[in-house]
């Protein structure tokens, strides 16, 4: 598998390149950009995951406290009911929130397949500027013809840099 990496000075130039690549049907296209291309970050399943895990955490810890205070170790505090549920809410809320945070954090790295400390694209010298001010697009394919084709299509767009890498 090999690929080609093209860097553009502006976001608009990258978007134009993406449109061109979409029209030419080359291999898989990946962008590497200094900031998010999609400003709003929609379409991620992580918020739903965080909500569900948070809710399960809330319910789980609530039930655990209810079990402890009603069945396992009932303690009469001033004649109040054993199932003093309002007093279980703060801890259940806190731990539910913690579960949701942890689900988001670890879920993020799972869904992005991180940590991934090396990627073939890192071998390109120009690639370091992806985290600064250059907008990159990488095309990967098993077929050297397609890579050459993508290189030609990208080269026609006058990118700031154009490099090939082996993967």
């Amino acid at each position: 598998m090999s690929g080609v990496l093209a860097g553009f000075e502006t976001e608009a130039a990258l978007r134009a390149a993406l449109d061109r690549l979409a029209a030419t049907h080359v291999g898989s296209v990946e962008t590497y950009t200094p900031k998010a291309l999609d400003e709003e970050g929609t379409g991620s399943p992580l918020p739903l995951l965080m909500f569900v895990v948070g809710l399960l955490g809330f319910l789980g810890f609530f039930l655990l406290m209810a079990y402890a205070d009603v069945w396992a170790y009932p303690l009469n505090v001033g004649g109040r009911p054993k199932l003093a549920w309002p007093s279980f809410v703060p801890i259940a809320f806190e731990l539910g929130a913690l579960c949701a945070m942890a689900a988001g954090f670890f879920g993020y790295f799972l869904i992005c397949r991180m940590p991934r400390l090396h990627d073939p694209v890192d071998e390109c010298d120009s690639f370091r500027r992806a985290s600064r001010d250059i907008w990159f697009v990488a095309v990967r394919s098993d077929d050297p013809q397609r890579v050459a084709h993508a290189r030609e299509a990208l080269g026609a767009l006058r990118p700031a840099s154009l490099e090939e890498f082996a993967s």
Partner: protein
Amino acid sequence: MSDIPTSRASAIGADLSAPLRGERRALHPDDPVLFPGVTIGSMTDRICAIALRERAFIWWWVAFVPCSALSLLLVISILYLFYAGIGIWGVDWPVMWGFAILSYVWWIAIASGGTIISALFFLVRAEWRTSINRVADSMMLFGAAAAGVYPILHLGRPWFAYWLFFYPNTMTLWAQFRSPLLWDFWALYTYVLASVLFWYLGLVPDLASVRDRATSRAKQVIYGFFALGFRGSRRQWKHLQATYAIMAAIMAPVVVSIHSVVGLDFAGGATVGWHSTEFPPFFVFGALLSGFAIVLLLVIPLRRLLRLEDMITGRHFDVLCKLLLTSSLFLAYGYLMDVFTTYYGGDRAERVMFTERLFGYYWTVYWGTILFNVALPQLMWFRRLRMNQIVVAAVCLGVVVGMWLERYEIVVTSLHRPHLPSSWGVYHGTFWDWSTLLGTVGMFLSGILLAVRYVPIIAMHEMRSLIGRSEARAAAAGRGP
């Protein structure tokens, strides 16, 4: 097709040995959030250059050495406490809660203020938050760490700390989940862990930027390790934005809950001066005030020393000082209601205690609180004074002291006049009380200084979005009629 950069140095895009510095600028309330001329490239280079400096600044060492010495004092104080027990502190009947609790509450307020800036103002899309977000986040992290030291120390028998956890045991005992003190334990540890996750996730793209600018192998490996392979791919950005936004939406209520629960620690007891429904929101107001004060105290020197004057502008000072004033007014309302409910209510013990608080042995503590938290922040009504960094720093320093005095007033003066006159007494902190407090201050400042030295102190990926929006606005204005 233009040239493909071949050498590493040109690939990095900047000469790190001569970091680009912003020009000196005076503060003006009509400043933009960001001065024109800051580009995503120059901003990234400047912030990375701070983290990647070969040698630390002289001022950094001047600040770091005493702070780390104080951190050492904290370690010594804790070791001696574990050896000798809490008898080395000033706590005794009737004042059984002393420095440990009041300093804990003080630190939690400072940390909470940082979270409010980084999470709550993220949700309302406040642009001024962008460049001070990392400072506020670091303040949250190290403030929470400083607070997290105290509850274990205060237990008296710290080796039984694990009794607070949920676990089945041979004694068939469970913790008392109906006690606000246990709520507080869980609120604190949720807050500490959640703030670490929130801080780190927001930091990952910036660590990647530093990794890509680093020229020495060791720094490339270390920053590369912590950046976890973030490359700015579409997938990484998309999920990062979604997750970070939801995390901010969780952190905002968590931070309100933790300080409310701290308030409930007091309100839940039938102690004179504590048994009030006002406490949870009153404590949150205090968190707001101390948060804005500490952020300003950190931003004033950092802006100047790191030459960030074009990114942290008069606009930031204007907003933060106005918020400081607003939260001071909230707190003033709390103090007023405290007086009103005491004297309007018929409880004799409450009135005796409050009169003692106003005019008795600890009168300086009460009036110091009013002076520092209510009177001095009124200077922030004036536009000219909001732009005067010396006045702002003095007011903020006053607030930091005032907030500590407020906690001293709540904890100590309430306890020193219990219902039974035969139990009345006075309290003073001992050497070890003060050394632990100073030690946590040292630990907090050392943490902030280490963050300034090794972590990008401005959230670069968020700044890039802000710069993009500013440039788009400038272009639109240029084209306009």
